[in-house]
């Protein structure tokens, strides 16, 4: 597949110094993988099927038919609390912008998937651990508001450590703000699919991630409310390996389905097909009438 123009522009510079290195080690099985092979395999380890965390724009390129029009990209975070810990917050943001070539932890916009026009939001763990601050919240709300106006289905990929501490309560309030936007979108007939990717925790899992009409998860993704370490400290024992995985949650009844990355696009297209315009479908389906 030829690289679309918008993606090529994004990729004018190498993403990081790491990118120059052509080999990468699978964190799960230790296999050394030639990076172009890894990319061609949708960032899934060819040996053990470990799903690497994906860059938001790689994810978008993997899903969309052709074009992607970004919205809210001009919004960048300020420093409302004047926050400093080891380094000042603005420095952390600058570092993450350089590292990830993103302006925030989510990319939102419009495109089409399998011929279905969609509003699409993709979080990226490379930017502040995908944490939700005011700009992430604002971009999500704008996405849902515009999807509501344009009567488009909305798909959001989550990857997040939760609310962003450096923006304090303003970050926590984004849970309420996004919830209100999602609710209004759905109340007016909007169709919302969420795909929980590794990892989805805290304030993001406890808001828009688990408010979708259909909640999917990528294979092996870590999903939960409290972080694994917090739970281990609380109960003072080691947790089983599969705890808080997508497969574990599927078994517990918390998810609609777990999909591998290879199946993902086809699965989304099938789900879009069930929901989009279903209210307008003829009362007797064509195959019965024939």
């Amino acid at each position: 597949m030829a690289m679309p123009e918008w993606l090529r522009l994004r990729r004018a510079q190498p993403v990081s110094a790491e990118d120059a290195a052509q080999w990468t080690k699978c964190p799960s099985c230790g296999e050394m993988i030639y990076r172009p092979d890894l990319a061609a395999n949708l960032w899934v380890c060819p040996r053990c099927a470990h799903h690497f965390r994906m860059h938001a724009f790689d994810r978008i390129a993997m899903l969309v038919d052709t074009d992607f029009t970004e919205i809210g990209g001009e919004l960048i975070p300020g420093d409302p609390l004047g926050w400093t810990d080891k380094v000042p917050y603005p420095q952390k943001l600058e570092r993450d912008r350089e590292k990830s070539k993103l302006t925030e932890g989510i990319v939102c916009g419009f495109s089409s998937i399998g011929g279905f026009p969609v509003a699409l939001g993709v979080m990226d763990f490379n930017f502040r651990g995908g944490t939700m601050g005011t700009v992430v919240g604002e971009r999500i709300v704008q996405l849902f508001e515009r999807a509501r106006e344009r009567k488009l289905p909305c798909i959001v990929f989550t990857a997040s450590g939760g609310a962003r501490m450096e923006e304090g309560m303003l970050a926590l309030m984004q849970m309420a703000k996004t919830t209100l936007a999602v609710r209004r979108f759905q109340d007016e007939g909007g169709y919302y699919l969420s795909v929980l990717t590794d990892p989805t925790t805290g304030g993001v899992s406890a808001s828009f991630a688990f408010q979708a009409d259909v909640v999917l998860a990528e294979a092996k993704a870590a999903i939960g409310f409290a972080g694994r370490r917090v739970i281990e400290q609380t109960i003072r024992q080691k947790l089983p390996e599969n705890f808080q995985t997508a497969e574990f949650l599927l078994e517990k009844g918390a998810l609609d389905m777990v999909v591998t990355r290879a199946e993902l696009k086809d699965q989304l297209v099938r789900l879009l097909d069930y929901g989009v315009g279903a209210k307008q479908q003829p009362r007797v389906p064509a195959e019965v009438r024939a």
Partner: protein
Amino acid sequence: MNVIVERERGLLELEQRIAELKAQAAQQPVDMSAEIAALEGKYAQIQREIFGTMTPWQRVNMARHPKRPLGSQYIAALDQFDELHGDRHFRDDHAIIGGFAKLKGRRVMAIAQDKGRDTKEKVYRNFGMPSPEGYRKVIRLVKLAAHLGLPVVTFVDTSGADPGIGSEERAQAEAIAQSLYELADARIPVVATVIGEGGSGGALALALADRVMMLEHSVYSVASPEGAAAILWGDAARAEEAASRLRLTADDLVRFGIVDEIIPEPLGGAHRDPDAIITRVLDRVDVALAQFVGVDPDVLLDRRYAKFRRIGAPS
């Protein structure tokens, strides 16, 4: 050790001496009024020194004070209360108390988080950390309130949602997400008051409200100071430093437009006069509810949307 409890110790000793002197004075013909007045003056001075200006960390400790009035006390002070139990799926979560109530004659749905006072009660209430069942009970009660047209009144006091294995197995994140989702479109007024600790998403799940109030020395935070310190510096002991940065005090949150009203506490904190503070809170809730009477539900929902929509929006 709670830093407020520590600082109070000297005051309590002084208080005791004053009481002893007064008792002596009542029995003996000697005039001790000058001595008593001097001690009382000293007492007032120390009290002002300790509580006049409090650091964020001191407020965290005040919010966690072992004698601080608890959710169940606010519930008990209502004119009438009929508890409704359980989530209809798994069990009744005792960290959240909810039910039909009358507040100054007004029919409401009252919902409170409660940490428990003594050890036995704390265990019973899971230290005020709700499990998914607690939030599912909230969802059920909010639905019922909307069905009958009763306003919802919540009292928030939790260090956070329960982080245990069982809570994760029963999808804590989904329960909180759905509690927010229910409140987002509940066609009745919702008034939330943070009476102690507003611990992150576990608190917000009861506070997506038309009016959000805080007691003067309560705190409301994106993460506990200990949790934040552990993440930032790998050292939970730096909680005091984290508390000073998180902007978790009522003053900060009013400035950010997140909290609408601060309810003042007596000098020395709410526990110095629980009855007075509980009465004051219920009065303020009543005033807030009165403002929503007769407001069209569509208008109410539009305002609720706008209230949160502007938080963190580009100016």
